[in-house]
């Protein structure tokens, strides 16, 4: 570990979190600005989100706890968030006198607790201008030697998907699923647009030298379908890897080494990693984090493999099976295997991800020993009758 600080001292570095909403990791390497940053960063490209939709995903990321435990297991779950029991990442910094600024696509997406200033985007918002103004504000704080924690939300992929997919095709329209390559090309264009916005943010952060005393955290909350799976137009309908798999990039040359990993990790691991990076101890007065620091993998100290649990509660009219308030599609993932349970029809799907990256060959009921192991693991999170 490159560490210029005494082990137990908290580090007063700024934290800059940037979400590239709905960006798939298999497209990240095709984006010039992101690609430029990866070789000098700690980069995990096999992160599994708790929920393939932003609300559940963000609450899990910012609490370090699955939505099945923190209360936010659907879009409507924000009303059930256990805020007395869960301490959010933002709140750790707020109580350390950081100025906390949150830019969010929508108020039901990013938890508002702990932010001094919370900006909710409208579709017509000039997001680039907003981000530019926020960075000016960060520069002023930096000049006054004040620390900051900021979240910037790049939402262009989301809105392109809404206009060009959701508004155009019903979830059961075969036309969409018969043109996957065309959809992928369109998606790449959306991703390039998001990356261009990211590039402008990066450029301005560098111009003000704000990266020198900050940890930069770049990630996606969930992935997205390009029509590879029937019924899954964009995300949230099922728990396939195209929508669950995401990435995380940490950049600070004194703390995060140039390191790339395709080991399975979870988005709930982001928060404990940031806390460890700054030597901030978990607050034991609150619910224990279910995520584990990624430094265990970086330092090659990980024993065993991580298990990723995910679930989704599809909105009505958006998916073959819907249940807006209670998750009905659940999955459990190991490094090489994946089990999905579709509760309304009591159907399991089993995939060997190592040999079948696209989850095309359902092995459930074909005698693989991993089947029962994964069912037992899933039972730790979900009642299976």
């Amino acid at each position: 570990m490159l560490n210029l600080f005494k082990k137990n001292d908290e580090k007063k570095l700024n934290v800059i979190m940037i979400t590239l909403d709905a960006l798939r990791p298999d497209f990240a390497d095709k984006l010039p600005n992101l690609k430029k940053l990866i070789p000098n960063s700690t980069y995990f490209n096999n992160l599994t989100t708790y929920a393939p939709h932003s609300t559940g995903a963000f609450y899990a990321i910012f609490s370090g706890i699955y939505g099945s435990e923190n209360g936010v297991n659907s879009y409507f779950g924000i009303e059930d968030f256990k805020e007395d029991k869960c301490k959010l990442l933002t709140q750790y910094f707020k109580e350390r006198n950081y100025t906390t600024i949150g830019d969010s696509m929508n108020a039901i997406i990013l938890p508002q607790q702990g932010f001094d200033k919370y900006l909710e985007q409208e579709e017509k918002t000039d997001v680039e201008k907003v981000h530019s103004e926020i960075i000016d504000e960060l520069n002023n704080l930096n000049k006054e030697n004040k620390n900051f924690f900021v979240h910037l939300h790049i939402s262009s992929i989301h809105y392109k998907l809404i206009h060009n997919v959701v508004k155009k095709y019903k979830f059961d329209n075969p036309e969409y699923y018969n043109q996957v390559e065309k959809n992928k090309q369109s998606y790449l264009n959306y991703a390039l647009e998001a990356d261009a916005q990211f590039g402008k943010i990066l450029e301005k952060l560098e111009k003000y030298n704000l990266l020198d005393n900050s940890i930069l955290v770049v990630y996606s909350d969930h992935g997205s379908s390009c029509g590879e799976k029937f019924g899954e137009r964009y995300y949230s309908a099922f728990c396939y890897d195209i929508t669950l798999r995401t990435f995380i990039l940490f950049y600070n040359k004194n703390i995060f080494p140039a390191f790339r990993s395709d080991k399975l990790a979870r988005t709930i691991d982001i928060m404990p990693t940031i806390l460890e990076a700054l030597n901030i101890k978990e607050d034991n007065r609150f619910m224990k984090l279910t995520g584990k620091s990624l430094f265990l993998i970086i330092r090659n100290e990980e024993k065993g493999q991580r298990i990723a649990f995910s679930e989704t509660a599809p909105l009505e009219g958006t998916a073959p099976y819907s249940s807006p308030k209670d998750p009905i599609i659940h999955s459990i993932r190991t490094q090489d295997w994946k089990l999905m349970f579709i509760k309304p029809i009591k159907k399991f799907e089993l995939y060997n991800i190592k040999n079948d990256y696209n989850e095309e060959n359902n092995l459930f009921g074909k005698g693989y020993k991993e089947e029962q192991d994964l069912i037992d693991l899933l039972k730790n999170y979900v009642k299976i009758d």
Partner: protein
Amino acid sequence: MDNQNKDLTSISIPKSLSDKIKGKIEGTPFHTVSSYITFVMRLMILESSNKDAITKEDEENVKAKLKKLGYID
């Protein structure tokens, strides 16, 4: 379980659980396993009712946000 009162009914729970509860309620105002379980169940139902009430109140707000995001019409 005491079911001498006609307003009460019997519900079976595992003996091992009943034994655990007996140990747990020693020295508390709960004199029987039945009274403890009744209290806990009433509490759970109350919490569940409150949750439903909150969800209904705020449901329209969430729906409005989902419309803004383009997920629903």
